[in-house]
Each structure stands twice: as C-alpha cells, then as structure tokens.
C-alpha cells in the first residue's frame, strides 16, 4: 500500500519535474542561443505563458474528465469555433445592440449555451445509441464544422466590443483574465473530481463499467453530464479568447482536440479510463506551452515544435508502460 502511494506520487510529480527541467534547460540554453536580451524566466514572460495556455488548457481540463470516464471527444475544436461565432455574431443582432453593454453577458450566455447543447447532442447519442464515443464525436466533429461554415461561409465573423476587450485584457493581481478563468476552472473541476459523488463515479465507471453498473451508478446520464460539461468548457475557452481578439475564422479551433488530448496524456491520464487528475493535466498544458515558447526563445524554428511534441508524446507513452510493467513485477515478487 505504501509502495503504491509512493508510485502514485512519482507519477503525479513527473509532469512538474518535467516542467522544472524545461525551465532550467531553456534558461541556460537561452543564455547562449537566444537572440533577445530578455531572460526566459522573465516574470512577464511567464504571465504571458499562462495566458496563452488558457484556450487549450480549459478544453483539456474537460477532456480529462471525459477520458477518466473512458470516452473521448474529438468535436471540441468545432464546438469552440461555433461558440465563438455565436458570441461575436449575437452582439450584432438588433435587439442586442439596443440594450448596450447588457449585451455582453447575454452574448456570453448564448455562446456557453451553444457549447452545452452541442455537448448534450454528443452525450445523448453516446447514451442512447451505444455507439462508441470516438465514432460519435468523429462524426460530430465534421457535422459541427459544417455548421460553422454554413453560418457565415468562408468569411471571418468579426465584432469588436471595447468594453469586452478591456475586460479580457485586464490584469487582476498580476494575472490576466484568461489565466483567472483557467485557474478557476481547474479549481472547480478539481473539487468536482475529488470531493463529490459525481467525481468518484467518474473514476468508478472508467475503471470498470460493469462493476459500476452493478453498484447502481447510472452510467448514461453520467456520460451526458460530462459531455455537456466539456461542451460548456469548449465554449468558455472560446468566450475567453474571442472576447479579446474579436474575429473568428471558420477554420479556428481545428486540431484543438488533438492538442488537448496530447496535454491530457502528458499529464498521465489513461486512455482506457479510470485514472487521471485535473492538476496533472494543468501541468501537461503548461509543459506544452513552455516547450513552444522555449524553442522559440532559443531560436529554433517554430516547425520543430510539432516534431518535438510528437516525439515526447510517444516517449511518455513508452516510459509510462515501462514503469507500469516494472510496478506490476514488483507486486508479483
């Protein structure tokens, strides 16, 4: 038992150790290779890094819960784009223009509602038809993207509201608005997964669905709630990001699902379900963003980022399996 908790600690600590290694490496390498004068560990640079992690990060938090459940959601990128369009377009509707700044919370509400509805569609299909979530969300990824294009063709949807931009660019206690949303969402979801019945059930279902059913957990509605949750989070991510940028292209959010899954897997969550943690996913998100910024800092081409992240993902998978196998052999002896 004691051994197991220690192994768990090592696993949960691994991603943070990786972050420390990254910080050290880029700081030292940056001294020699960097083209700019500023240090990598610059405080403002780190704050910016957190802010830039927010869009993928908020989605990855939701993906963690979905994957703990043993499901997957490939449609989050398209949900992100559709919510963004609803956010920006709804502010130009005539009755919205008439109510002044009250349009902002209403537009946020419309966008978030869009996300929840799209998530609910996925969840209902998974629940009622019994088709694997991978196929269901693969289909809706195409379908939702189709809706995005049907909304406004290939034209970008733009609307700048300066009150909204001011809010999105604000800094409170040093942290940007987007960072606050990322940290707030992480805190709430951490509480949800560790302190509530819903969280415990999520682990139970991912671990052994049949046993969970026998224990009286209603699996279907549970799935539905989680898909609504990730839809909400994908929309929240869009709301936070596009409040500032004010313009969305129909291709925005493409491949976000893959980035989010990468962050979640880096954080140690199992694809097969039943294991994972919100905090480690936060670590995975930060690690990826650090890598992006760090490689840029030491003057590497941006294209190498993809190469490095892909190889690291495979290496993590390999290491994880080796560690697990070692653990099992220790248990046997």
């Amino acid at each position: 038992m004691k051994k197991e908790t220690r192994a768990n600690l090592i696993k949960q600590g691994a991603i943070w150790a990786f972050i420390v290694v990254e910080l050290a490496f880029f700081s030292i390498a940056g001294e020699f290779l960097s083209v700019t004068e500023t240090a990598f560990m610059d405080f403002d640079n780190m704050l910016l890094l957190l802010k830039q992690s927010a869009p993928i990060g908020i989605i990855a938090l939701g993906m963690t819960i979905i994957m703990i459940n043993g499901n997957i959601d490939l449609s989050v990128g398209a949900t992100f784009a559709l919510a963004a369009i609803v956010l920006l377009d709804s502010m130009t509707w005539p009755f919205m223009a008439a109510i002044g700044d009250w349009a902002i919370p209403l537009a946020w509400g419309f966008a978030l509602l869009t996300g929840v509805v799209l998530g609910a569609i996925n969840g209902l299909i998974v629940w009622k038809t019994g088709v694997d979530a991978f196929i269901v969300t693969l289909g809706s990824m195409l379908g939702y993207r189709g809706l995005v294009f049907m909304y406004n063709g290939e034209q970008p949807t733009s609307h700048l509201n300066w009150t909204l931009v001011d809010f999105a660019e604000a800094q409170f206690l040093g942290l940007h608005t987007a960072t606050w949303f990322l940290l707030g969402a992480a805190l709430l979801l951490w509480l949800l997964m560790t302190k509530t019945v819903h969280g415990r059930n999520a682990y139970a279902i991912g671990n052994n669905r049949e046993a969970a059913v026998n224990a009286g957990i209603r699996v279907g509605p549970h799935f539905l709630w989680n898909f609504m949750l990730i839809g909400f989070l994908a929309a929240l991510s869009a709301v936070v990001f596009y409040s500032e940028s004010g313009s969305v292209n129909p291709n925005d959010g493409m491949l976000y699902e893959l980035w989010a899954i990468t962050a979640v897997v880096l954080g140690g969550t199992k694809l097969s379900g039943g294991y994972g943690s919100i905090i480690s996913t936060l670590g995975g998100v930060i690690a990826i963003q650090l890598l992006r910024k760090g490689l840029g800092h030491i003057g590497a081409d941006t294209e190498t980022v993809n190469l490095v992240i892909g190889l690291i993902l495979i290496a993590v998978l390999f290491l994880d399996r080796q560690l697990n196998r070692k653990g099992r052999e220790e248990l046997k002896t």
Partner: protein
Amino acid sequence: MAELTKKGVAGFLARQGILVAFVVFMIVFAIANPRFIDIDNIFGVIRSSAILGVMALGVTFVVIGGNLDLSVGSMMSFSTIVVLDLHDKIGPTLGIPVMFAMTMALGAFIGFLVGYLKLNSLIVTLGMLSAIHGLTLTYSGGKNMDIADKEGTWFGIFGQGSIAGVPVPIIMFALLAIVLSIILSRTPFGRKVYAVGGNGIAATFSGIPRARIVFMTYLMSSFCVATAGLIQASRSLGSQNTVGQGMELEVLAAVILGGASLLGGAGTIFKTVIGVLILGFIQNGLLLMGLAFYAQYVVTWIIIILAVWLDIAAKRGRLWSPIA
C-alpha cells in the same frame, strides 16, 4: 417461416445495409437531377475521391488489425512535398521510388512502435501526426513546393492523364483496390490480419506472429499514403505543406462508414470502397441539388452515426443501447 424470412431480410440489411443505402442514394439523386448519372460527372466524382480512397484502402488493413491510424493526413503532406522536391533535384524516375522509401520508413517506424513495442496506436499515431507535420515543415522550410518546369515534365500523368478515356487516378485506385482485396481475402496474411484484430490473444496462442502482422499493416498503409501523395503531387504539380491536414479523420470516416469495426476483426476492401464512394457522391449530389457545399459535412455526420448505430443495433437485436 415468416419469422425466418424477416430474419433473412434483417440479416441481409445488417450485412449489406451500406450497399443498399448507396443504391438508394444514387437513385434518389439521379431522379432529382439527371446530370448526376452523367458519365463525366461519375468519373469526376471518383477521380476526386481517388486520393482519399487510396488512403482509406491502407487504413482498412490497420483498422481490421485492431489499430487506428491518425497520421495518414500529415504523412500524405510529407510524401507530396518530398516527391515535388525530389522531382527537381534528382528527376521523377529516381524521385518517386525514393519518396516511397522515405514514406514507408515512417510507416515502418509506426509499425515498430505499435506492433513490437505494443504502444497504444491512437496516441502513437497522434504523436506522429504532429511529428511528421514538423518533419514536413523542416524539410520544406515552411514554403510551398512547386515544380519549376510544369510544361516539360511527364510527371503530371498520375494525376491528370487518362488511358482509354479513363482517368489514371481512377485506374490506380481500382488496381490497388483489387490487389489489396485479393491480399486481404485470399491469402494467409489476410486471414492473419482478421485473426489478430478479432482476438489478439487467441491469435498469439495459435502461433500467429502478432507483432509482425501489425507492423505489416502499417507498412501497407504507408505504401497507400505514398501512392496518394504521388497522385496529389502529380495533379497539382505544386503543394502547400498542409495539403493532407484533417484527411486522417475523413479517411477514418469512410472506413467506418464501410462497416469496419474500430475494435478490429471486421471490414472488407469492397465495403471501404463503397464508403469512399458514398462520401464522394453525397458531396456531389448535394451540390447538384443546390445545397450549400458545407451542408455535406452535416449530412455525412448524420449518415456515419446512423450507419454505425444500425450496424450495432442489428448485432445486439435492440435499437436502443442497454446503457442504464
């Protein structure tokens, strides 16, 4: 007796439902717009589906073997960029085999990771999607690749040429489909692919080298990707770095639509071809009916879900899932 017939009809629909759906679609579209069954239109649709189709043939092997391949899109970009670059550097006669070798080396690497190291194929190919994209960008320096002398090369034949009135991409797609179909259904190797995907542990116990079979499926997939890259490069004689981006999921959609199970062990080349053609003809048919281009995505979504749902429902004998 009546029950038997009913069972027979239901069984037939469950087995060949996708074919029936395809025929129904074709008839409806043909009635709605006679231009739909015009021979030029049909050739046009198959020709533009050929690249997706060739990739889907290879992925069918991987999926029947019980694995996934999300890297085919970025691998296709890679082979397109490489063959265009080599065309000007060492000439097409030498460049094409070198490109095939490079692409299949990537396939062999994935096959090694998934087959011999037994790593999860979803994550490995997800990682490779990103890594190969990075490789392509590094190779090209992020610039578009173009053939310098577009007039004076015979390289365009794979994408633009035609033999006896039939476009070459269609001939390549058909030939590859026939050869791969024979390999899958008539050879010991093909049977082993089904065995490994159907029940890997049982296959291992009956002496089938599971790792090698999985390795081979990825090698075949990368061969198909290289062929698709060749057609793509030859068709446009120039390319962006992201030409195959997002195709991995469309390819997978076609394979699933054809009835291959994601759990492995089920599916045929013929059904995958039907899946590819359905996607192509729906897109074309909706366009001819005057629907917005992007409406096809929504229709594809509905069709994929319905196809897989009805397939599962027929197998379990109940429409709605037993999930509590």
